[in-house]
């Protein structure tokens, strides 16, 4: 019996030894399953050790960033996010750099010199479909609604008052359509020197709003054709690109007779006595999308957590801006610094704190002239992108007809509500955002009638919308005739 026990124990020792040998072999081969727990523990440690000052969702891939902006008051969310430390709280160290003009800003984002920028809503769309420089640019954040105005020179205003006596009163009825401008346009055309107006960029909201306003009164603002990239074919009024800071000077000189631009350039014209704002884009299309925060698709793909963190900081900045008039006043002080917008404080305050001055002395209450957060202003709606696409088609920047599906697909390529929702979810979890401020939507706003000419817009039916215009490429035609 002892021998058997000794035998069995020695067999056990043998088997123990061979088990250990087998374990050693396993360690050398490092099979996938064996040390998973070590890897998970390492990952958790890594996340804790490298977590930034706030509760980040994951590691930030890139935390030193450079953003560009143009000196307009609606760069406010970017400036506030930096100056009030919202970026820093997300672990981002951001440099803001003013750019010379919209073209350079877009080129620098595409080339990677800027990680992201304050952009016109049309820029990511135009770039992605190839109007101008071609590059896939996306946006997860809408920076503001409204904020533009159309200003005309003093001479034109006097002639408009002559055509429409109600404009000559102290408080003319608003909104002022281009009806009183139409006879002036005819006159200038007959003299051989058509009226000239300025806007800031071929795919800018200003271009489309100015064209909409003119076309609503039967004035043709010109078409883009494959041969004509300046958009002046068949035009009653010639529209050209002018950088915002040069607009008051060119208006004064008479090179242009009017312009559509953001603030502070309309109020500047009023303060310097060189022009009169006649209508704001709030009156052309109530609560229209204006600027977005754009990044290249590549950047968002390679740095998803960074993109979410950026969006979080910007949402908080937008919320702060619309929180109270007091905050707006503080924002005006910051924006008046020469490294940001730089214009005089009172000029900026005129439009940012709930009013807008038309003719000198005619200051009206307009609390929604700039909207940074209310009415879900920060959410990137597909229907907004589709409106710009329809206008690009209407005026010929998109030379052929496209199916409704094309519009929907293109909007989905450019606007990224998925990033927005992730950012909003984190903010809600951290108690920095109310759940009610995040819209329940499939990306399409309900059909709206709030345009100056009363035409209904339904983002789900872009081609039908195109057919409803008197002036513009209709769906079913190729290109406007020469």
């Amino acid at each position, binding site marked *: 019996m002892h021998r058997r026990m000794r035998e069995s124990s020695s067999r056990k020792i043998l088997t123990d030894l061979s088990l250990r040998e087998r374990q050693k072999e396993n360690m050398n081969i490092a099979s996938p399953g064996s040390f998973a727990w070590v890897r998970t523990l390492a990952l958790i440690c890594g996340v804790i050790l490298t977590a930034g000052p706030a509760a980040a969702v994951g590691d930030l891939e890139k935390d030193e960033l450079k953003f560009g902006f143009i000196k307009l008051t609606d760069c406010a969310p970017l400036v506030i996010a930096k100056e009030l430390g919202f970026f820093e709280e997300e672990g981002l160290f951001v440099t803001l750099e003013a750019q010379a003009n919209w073209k*350079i800003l877009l*080129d620098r984002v595409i080339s990677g*010199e800027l990680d992201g920028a304050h952009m016109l809503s049309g820029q990511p769309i135009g770039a992605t479909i190839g109007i101008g420089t071609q590059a896939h640019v996306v946006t997860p954040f809408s920076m503001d609604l409204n904020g533009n105005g159309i200003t005309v020179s003093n001479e034109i205003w006097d002639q408009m008052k002559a055509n429409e006596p109600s404009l000559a009163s102290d408080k003319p009825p608003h909104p002022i359509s281009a009806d009183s401008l139409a006879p002036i346009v005819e006159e200038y055309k007959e003299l051989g020197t058509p009226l000239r107006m300025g806007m800031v960029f071929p795919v800018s909201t200003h271009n489309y709003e100015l064209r909409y306003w003119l076309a609503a009164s039967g004035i043709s603002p010109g078409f883009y054709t494959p041969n004509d990239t300046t958009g002046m074919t068949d035009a009653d009024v010639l529209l050209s690109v002018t*950088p915002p800071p040069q607009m*008051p000077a060119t208006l004064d000189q008479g090179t242009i007779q009017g312009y559509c631009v953001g603030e502070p350039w309309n109020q500047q014209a009023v303060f310097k006595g*060189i022009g009169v704002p006649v209508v704001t884009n709030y009156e052309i299309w109530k609560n229209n999308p204006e600027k977005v925060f754009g990044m290249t698709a590549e950047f968002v793909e390679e740095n998803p957590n960074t993109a979410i963190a950026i969006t979080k900081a910007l949402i908080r900045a937008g919320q702060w801006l619309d929180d109270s008039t007091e905050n707006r006043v503080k924002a005006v002080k910051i924006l008046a610094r020469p*490294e940001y917008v*730089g214009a005089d404080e009172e000029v900026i305050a005129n439009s940012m704190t709930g009013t807008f001055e038309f003719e000198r002395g005619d200051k009206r209450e307009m609390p929604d002239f700039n909207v940074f957060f209310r009415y879900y202003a920060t959410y990137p709606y597909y229907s907004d992108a589709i409106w710009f696409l329809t206008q690009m088609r209407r005026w010929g920047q998109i030379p052929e007809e496209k199916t409704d599906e094309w519009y929907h697909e293109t909007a989905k390529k450019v606007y990224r509500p998925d990033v927005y929702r992730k950012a909003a979810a984190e903010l809600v979890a951290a108690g920095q955002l109310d759940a009610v401020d995040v819209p329940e939507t499939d990306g399409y706003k309900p059909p709206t009638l709030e345009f100056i000419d009363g035409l209904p817009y339904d983002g789900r039916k872009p081609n039908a919308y195109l057919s409803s215009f008197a002036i513009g490429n209709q769906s079913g035609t190729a290109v406007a005739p020469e």
Partner: protein
Amino acid sequence: MKEKIIRSMETVGLGLFVPVVRLATWEEPGEQIQVLARNLGVPLLAILVFCAGWSALAASVETSIGSVPGPAAVWAEAGNLVVDHQQERGKEAAFYERMEKMKARYASEGKKWKDRKYAGKPTYFDQILTSLKTVFAGFLVASLIAVPLGVVCGLSPRFYEAMNPLIQIFKPVSPLAWLPIVMILVSALYTTKDPYFEKSFVSSAITVALCSLWPTLVNTALGVASVDRDHLNVARVLRLSWPATVFKIVIPSALPLIFTGLRLSLGVGWMVLIAAEMLAQNPGLGKFVWDMFQNGSSQTLAQIMVAVFTVGLIGFALDRLMLTLQGFVSFGNEARA
């Protein structure tokens, strides 16, 4: 001792102030005062008359940005820029202090720390420094291309005939015409993920180089071509090798003209830089002017004038610097303009 001081002042180009030194040591005071009155007094009087005229005219012109600022307003604005610079430095110091505190906290909690750079705006003096760095970078590139090319042009008349049409066509091209091409090429070719030099810096430096290499090229060619025949004959007699001829005889003879070319190039480069920076977005003086213009505030004109004077004074200083260097390599009697 005094003579040493006087000689070094003259070498540096401060010959105007030599009578002051002589006056301090009471050497012929009468004559020194006369010389001073003539050399310093007259220019100073002219400057005062200019300032008075400017003051008078400024008040009478109203522009769409406000009235044209006079000398007092411009001086005040220069003061503002200095104060602004100091405030920004203060903010930077506060930032680093905050970072130090966080670093200590992270260290005590055993977490990893990454050093951050302050992400504030560049102040006026930072911008001046950036402009100087860019102009010297461009100037260096231009000299490295132009001097060897000029030497070859000077030594070989056939080569010069070949190059001449190209030189004549490209010489008058303005920097603003080169800039878009340079910017597009730099975007396409300079695509490292984490570049040492900013693309805007590279674009500006290359534009400066393209515009400023022509004076050096032409003057070098001229200098080399006008080397004394006798010197070259000596080289032949001694059977000097070709590199020895070039480096021991040709270049030293041509140095005065080469330096004239370099001096002109630096002047042109400085002018071109300001224009290039406005569009290339290099954070220097050109960008300062353009950004202030875009502000359209009531201080805009004064700020731009401060920039104009700064550009002028720095250009003057650079010119004096090159003149001094030229003096070192010339044989004492070269013309000073």
